[in-house]
């Protein structure tokens, strides 16, 4: 490649073009796409273009370096001037005019040329470039600005003087003229970064970035007039050329030229200014122009343009009806057959774009979407942001019409969702409501769970017990949670004591029962586990009394939950616990019995869920009392007090106790003989206390035939339990309390899980039935139609 010598003008021009093509700002390589566009714009035959590319070495290299690019441009100029393409011609041809590129580039080039070369050339070049379709450049309708007037005149002059020099100008050329003007002021701005993303940019590229910045203020004044001109008289000669001629020195001229330019140029301006981000953005001047146009039809900016008027107006643009119809579909956001200001601007913008050769989008670009609620925005002129703003379309907005819901920052591709969004708008809001409802539902659930916690439901192994517990829980006061908790810890140790004592005495595998002393929840398994713990406690310390509502230790079988439950039940819960208590009471006894009895008790107890827990409490309390009375060393006075309290509570609640008593008695009886001998510790001292318990139980016993037995048993159990609780209670009480609560919770969890699964199963069944019914209905239906 021989060296290339360029004149200064050429140098600058080529530099600008290169920067235009240098989309990636590499400063080294011009993007092939842009270069190809440029070459296309040069309006040279393809083979010539290929030849050029070959000559400049790009085909060899595979890309357009700066030197290649310059050579190529020079060759384009050579070709355009009709000279044969030869490498030698690069340097030999001296007075080669700058290459001309038709589309945008052309204008840029021509402007460039104007910039760099003499003014005389400008008109020619411009004129060559200018003759945009007559339709574009219209006589200015009503002078929006004097500039326009001036422009017009100037353009006219230019028009007359400028023969069509450049090769056939396509409509878009006018924009180029604009661009050229832009370039003038920006002269040296050719290095503007090319931001143009959309198709608009391709042609406009170079001039736009820089020019837009420079020319925006200038443009603003211009765009409206051209529009007016365009619209008003579609057939006028393009004044742009004249304008172009004027530009050289003054920005003013440029602006005038621009304004005159025509709708297309205005579009260009628009595009340029908005090109950086969004090819569809409406610039301020464009917007102002649209607003003015709107006013001509509808003086009230907040009003509507009826469809018929809009139809007439846009028909003037001479676009095919089909396209106008599509533009309408895109821009009539709310599908009401009328155009608001925003809609009108969007439609106008689309028309302008279409006239400039840009294809209509499938969906309305975001920047064109009208803001539904703010009419003020529409009144604001030149707010690009306004145009960018998204309309908060009304819920009833027609589906399928406008592309995306205003919500959002959706990109064009997302616009497809619009229809569904539109249609589901209300649904969405309703869903949100449902969401809130859910939240509200959740809230109450929490307290329940919280409450449940303390409730020691550990009832008997049966589910019923659990259910009752749940009932109790739901019904229990929230205030009580604490008390049960308090009670629980007290119960725990008590239970332990009792259970252990009972176990010892009974010699049964009390395991099942009171082991769960810690967790008063009703799980038979737990009961077993607690027993062991209780054993540990077996130090018959009356102190056990304190915290947990003493599960009826005597009911070691039920022990764990029962004791605690008792307390709680007394204090808080309804009768369900009584069943628990019953279980607990029976705990130490034969396991088999226990469940049976428990269930039986439960059946009886339907009345008061509290009863069950109370029973154990009874037992515990009795023990505690016994302990207290007996003066067994208690580590914690509190425990005793709590126990006593629990006992008192037990006493107070008569209803449940009966059942419990019965059961407890039964159990106690079983254990009594065994327990008595075994529980050596506090048995004796316990004896008196159990008695009162027994009495209590007896009094409460309403339903149970076994009440007496139970009372006895409870007494024994209580005694046993009382004997059992030993000193360590205070120490391990907390831990036990926690463990008990944990166990209880687990029990409740399992119960709930069971319930849940059952309900789900039911639900499935029902659904299946429904489906089968529907199928039948469907089968029958066609016949009904015929």
């Amino acid at each position, binding site marked *: 490649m021989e060296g290339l010598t360029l004149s200064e003008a050429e140098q600058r021009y080529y530099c600008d073009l290169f920067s235009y093509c240098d989309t990636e700002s590499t400063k080294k390589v011009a993007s092939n796409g842009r270069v190809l566009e440029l070459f296309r714009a040069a309006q040279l035959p393809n083979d010539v273009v290929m030849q050029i590319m070959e000559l400049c070495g790009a085909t060899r290299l595979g890309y357009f370096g700066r030197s290649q690019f310059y050579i190529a441009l020079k060759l384009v100029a050579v070709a355009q001037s009709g000279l044969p393409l030869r490498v030698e011609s690069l340097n030999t041809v001296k007075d080669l005019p700058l290459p001309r590129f038709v589309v945008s580039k052309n204008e840029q080039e021509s402007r460039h040329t104007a910039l760099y070369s003499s003014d005389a050339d400008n008109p020619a070049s411009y004129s060559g470039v200018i003759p945009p379709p007559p339709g574009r450049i219209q006589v200015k309708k009503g002078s929006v600005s004097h500039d326009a007037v001036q422009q017009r005149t100037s353009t006219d002059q230019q028009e007359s003087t400028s023969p069509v020099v450049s090769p056939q100008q396509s409509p878009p050329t006018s924009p180029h003229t604009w661009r050229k003007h832009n370039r003038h002021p920006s002269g040296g701005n050719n290095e503007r970064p090319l931001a143009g993303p959309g198709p608009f940019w391709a042609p406009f590229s170079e001039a736009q970035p820089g020019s837009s910045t420079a020319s925006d203020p200038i443009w603003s004044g211009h765009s409206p007039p051209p529009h007016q001109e365009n619209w008003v008289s579609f057939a006028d000669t393009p004044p742009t050329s004249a304008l172009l001629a004027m530009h050289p020195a003054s920005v003013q001229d440029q602006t005038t030229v621009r304004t005159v330019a025509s709708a297309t140029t205005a579009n260009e301006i628009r595009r340029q200014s908005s090109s950086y981000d969004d090819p569809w953005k409406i610039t301020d001047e464009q917007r102002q122009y649209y607003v003015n146009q709107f006013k001509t039809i509808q003086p009230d900016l907040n009003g509507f343009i009826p469809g018929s008027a809009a139809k007439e107006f846009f028909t003037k643009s001479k676009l095919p009806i089909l396209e106008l119809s*599509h533009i309408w579909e895109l821009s009539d956001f709310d599908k009401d057959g009328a155009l608001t200001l925003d809609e009108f601007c969007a439609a106008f913008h689309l028309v302008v774009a279409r006239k400039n050769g840009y294809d209509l989008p499938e969906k309305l670009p975001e920047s064109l979407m009208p803001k539904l609620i703010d009419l003020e925005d529409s009144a604001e002129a030149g707010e690009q942001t306004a145009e960018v703003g998204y309309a908060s379309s009304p819920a009833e907005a027609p589906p399928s019409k406008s592309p995306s819901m205003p919500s959002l920052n959706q990109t064009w591709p997302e616009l497809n969702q619009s229809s569904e969004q539109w249609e589901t708008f209300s649904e969405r809001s309703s869903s949100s409501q449902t969401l809130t409802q859910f939240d509200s539902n959740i809230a109450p659930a929490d307290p329940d769970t919280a409450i449940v916690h303390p409730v020691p439901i550990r009832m008997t192994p049966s589910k019923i017990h659990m259910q009752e517990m749940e009932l109790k829980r739901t019904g229990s006061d929230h205030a009580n949670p604490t008390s049960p908790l308090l009670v629980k810890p007290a119960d725990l140790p008590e239970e332990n004591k009792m259970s252990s004592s009972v176990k010892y005495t009974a010699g049964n595998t009390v395991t099942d029962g009171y082991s769960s002393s810690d967790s008063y929840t009703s799980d038979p398994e737990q009961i077993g586990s607690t027993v062991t713990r209780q054993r540990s406690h077996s130090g018959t310390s009356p102190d056990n009394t304190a915290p947990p509502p003493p599960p009826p230790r005597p009911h070691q079988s039920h022990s764990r939950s029962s004791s605690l439950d008792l307390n709680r039940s007394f204090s808080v819960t309804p009768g369900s616990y009584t069943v628990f208590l019953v279980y607990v009471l029976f705990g130490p006894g034969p396991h088999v019995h226990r469940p049976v009895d428990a269930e039986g008790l439960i059946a009886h107890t339907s009345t008061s869920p509290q009863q069950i827990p109370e029973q154990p409490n009874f037992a515990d309390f009795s023990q505690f009392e016994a302990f207290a009375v007996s003066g067994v060393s208690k580590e914690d006075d509190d425990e005793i007090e709590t126990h006593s309290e629990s006992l008192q509570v037990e006493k107070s609640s008569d209803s449940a106790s009966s059942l419990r008593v019965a059961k407890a008695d039964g159990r106690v009886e079983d254990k009594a003989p065994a327990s008595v001998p075994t529980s050596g510790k506090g048995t004796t001292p316990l004896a008196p206390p159990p008695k009162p318990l027994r009495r209590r139980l007896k009094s409460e016993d309403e339903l149970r035939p076994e009440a007496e037995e139970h009372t006895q048993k409870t007494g024994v159990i209580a005694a046993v339990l009382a004997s059992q609780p030993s000193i360590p209670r205070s120490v391990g009480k907390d831990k036990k309390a926690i463990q008990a609560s944990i166990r209880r919770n687990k029990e409740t969890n399992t119960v709930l899980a069971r319930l849940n699964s059952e309900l789900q199963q039911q639900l499935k069944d029902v659904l299946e039935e429904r489906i089968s019914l529907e199928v039948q209905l469907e089968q029958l239906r066609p016949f009904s139609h015929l």
Partner: protein
Amino acid sequence: MAVCIAVIAKENYPLYIRSVPTENELKFHYTVHTSLDVVDEKISAMGKALVDQRELYLGLLYPTEDYKVYGYVTNSKVKFVMVVDSSNTALRDNEIRSMFRKLHNSYTDIMCNPFYNPGDRIHSRAFDNTVTSMMMQVC
């Protein structure tokens, strides 16, 4: 879901007809044409001045071995005819109704367009999209 959707004008000429391309389209056109008789029969049977939504939906016009034909008439006597594949048994009546409702909405949108002359063929892209969405399921 639908195999063919057609919009018939008051004078019983088609404003818009589109079928799933894989099938023999002519067959569907013929089907739609013959179904117009049933539509007219139902309309006349309904009496006059019935503007109820329910009556807009005509329901199953007639079933054949391969497909079913549903009808819907607007207040301006513009008819929508939809041919549905019989193998698609999951289609409920309510779904058909909703499809017709959507069609009706789209048609209304077209009517709102001042550039559309009633009686012209429908070239709206939005309407096409709506119809396509309904016909997507058919493979």
